[in-house]
């Protein structure tokens, strides 16, 4: 990686002061997004398919219990099914909440010039937000494992308490930031730091334009899904369930095929919704990262490489997630590589921001 010979411009440096709220939110935001994506990749490889397989087996066992006329066994099997769904749901939620907290952190970094609050309070709020963004997904992840162990509550475990407390911290910070924005709106001269630099470099234009195009593609695909797939899927689900249960009740064969159909429909819905949401989330990520580019201290060549790596990964993941329906695990593997490319691009940019802050602190003599 070539050393950048650029001199740190004073105007940009003023927007990235040592240990400022904005610096904390940008570092914390990128780290949360990268952590959330890494967790999502691990979840996709090691948990998602295995969990889907177990859910299918459990549903098959439920139809066998129906065929045997054993309603007690059906109830027990559904309790087990609830546990499997909780395992899947909490992991998915941990992934989504960690990346979304990261997006919000960078979003808050962008609006800091319009938050009319004292610097110390802004720094404190930023610290709380990043901590809340970390503990919320950790709490959600632990819900399935901790359960109600040692809990004084009837239905809420300690992991839920951790997640809810972290969520409450995030809401408090957002309300305080909204209060700061309200103060700015009432008196726009009440600004506490300079606005972000408004340059139009290749990196910024590519990330912003590419990001909007990704969001647009995600939007169009979502509209297609809502128009042509959503109602068809809903009708198919009811049809499969009735066929599955009618055959089991009549003691006929074919329940295995019906359960396989149900799993196939669930997979089709999951990949189509994942493609839609990932296109939009990566688009938003690219747009947010375009604002961070003035703080990435790398040579122009490397800055452009990381931008391209991130945008290529952002396209590869949703496209190959969709192709999983036709190509199976091969497409799933390529989609995971796409996710990894996004993480690599993010980490490359984070290294650039760390170098920038290091050189800025060295010039100003600020304590580390």
């Amino acid at each position, binding site marked *: 990686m070539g050393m950048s010979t650029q001199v740190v411009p004073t105007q940009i440096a003023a927007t990235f002061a040592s240990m400022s709220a904005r610096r904390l939110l940008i570092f914390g935001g990128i780290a949360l997004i990268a952590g959330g994506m890494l967790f999502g990749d691990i979840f996709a490889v090691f948990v998602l398919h295995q969990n889907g397989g177990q859910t299918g087996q459990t549903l098959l066992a*439920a*139809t066998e*219990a*129906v065929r*045997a*006329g*054993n*309603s007690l*066994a*059906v*109830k027990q099997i*559904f309790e087990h099914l*609830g546990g499997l769904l909780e395992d899947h749901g909490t992991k998915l939620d941990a992934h989504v909440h960690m990346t979304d907290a990261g*997006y*919000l952190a960078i*979003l808050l970094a*962008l*609006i800091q010039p*319009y938050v009319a609050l004292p610097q110390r309070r802004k720094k404190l709020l930023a610290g709380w937000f990043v901590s809340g963004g970390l503990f919320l997904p950790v709490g959600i992840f632990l819900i399935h494992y901790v359960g109600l162990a040692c809990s004084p509550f009837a239905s809420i475990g300690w992991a839920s308490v951790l997640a809810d407390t972290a969520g409450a911290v995030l*809401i408090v910070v957002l309300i305080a930031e*909204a209060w700061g*924005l309200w103060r700015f*709106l009432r008196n*726009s001269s009440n600004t506490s730091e300079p606005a*972000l630099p*408004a340059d*139009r470099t290749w990196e*910024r*234009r590519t990330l*912003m*334009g590419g990001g*909007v*195009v990704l*969001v*647009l593609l995600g*939007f*169009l695909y*979502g*509209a297609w899904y*809502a128009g042509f797939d959503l*109602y068809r899927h*809903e009708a198919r*689900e*009811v049809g499969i*369930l*009735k066929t599955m*249960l*009618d055959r*089991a*009740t009549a003691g006929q064969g074919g329940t295995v095929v019906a359960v396989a159909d149900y799993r196939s429909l669930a997979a089709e819905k999951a990949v189509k919704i994942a493609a839609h949401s990932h296109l*939009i989330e990566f688009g*938003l990520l690219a*747009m*947010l990262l*375009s*604002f961070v580019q003035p703080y990435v201290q790398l040579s122009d060549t490397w800055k452009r490489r990381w931008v391209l790596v991130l945008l290529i990964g952002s396209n590869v993941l949703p496209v190959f997630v969709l192709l999983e329906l036709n190509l199976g695990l091969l497409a799933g593997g390529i989609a995971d590589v796409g996710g990894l490319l996004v993480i690599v691009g993010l980490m490359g940019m984070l290294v650039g921001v760390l170098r920038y802050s290091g050189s800025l602190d060295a010039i100003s003599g600020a304590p580390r």
Partner: protein
Amino acid sequence: MSGARKLLVFGGISLAVFGMLYGLHYAIFVEHQTLDRMGGSLAQAFVRAAEGNVPELDRAVDKYASTKYNYVRQVDVHSHWIGLAMLMIVLGVALDGAALEERLQTWIAVALLTGSLVFPLGVMLQTISHGAFWASMLAILGSGLVTVSLAVLAWGFIRRTT
């Protein structure tokens, strides 16, 4: 700060707060009951099947389908309002980087705000009257406004000239 940027940033924040409050209300007063009803009716369908009670089985499956129809859309409404609000805030901060005339920027901001409000509203109204044509039309109109605005903005951001 131009009028278009103000509209996007503060409109986005208002929409995000509204979307969060809607989600909070839904989570506290509706979601748990809905999830219980959804899981309960599916389990009920299997139990009725084990008992050989086909009419009750069909009723339970229909109840599951109807509850899930509402649940999917209500969750979508909440997440789309917040997602669109975040998009509006980012676009509001970035709007100066779009090589577009100020008048066009204002029109885009108005279209984005209207579309972001109306699209999830149309989806929500579908839960009041299942499959209602006017509710679907409202959702299509809203999403159309957002799509066209985004396409114009993408062109503005990619253009080299200011």
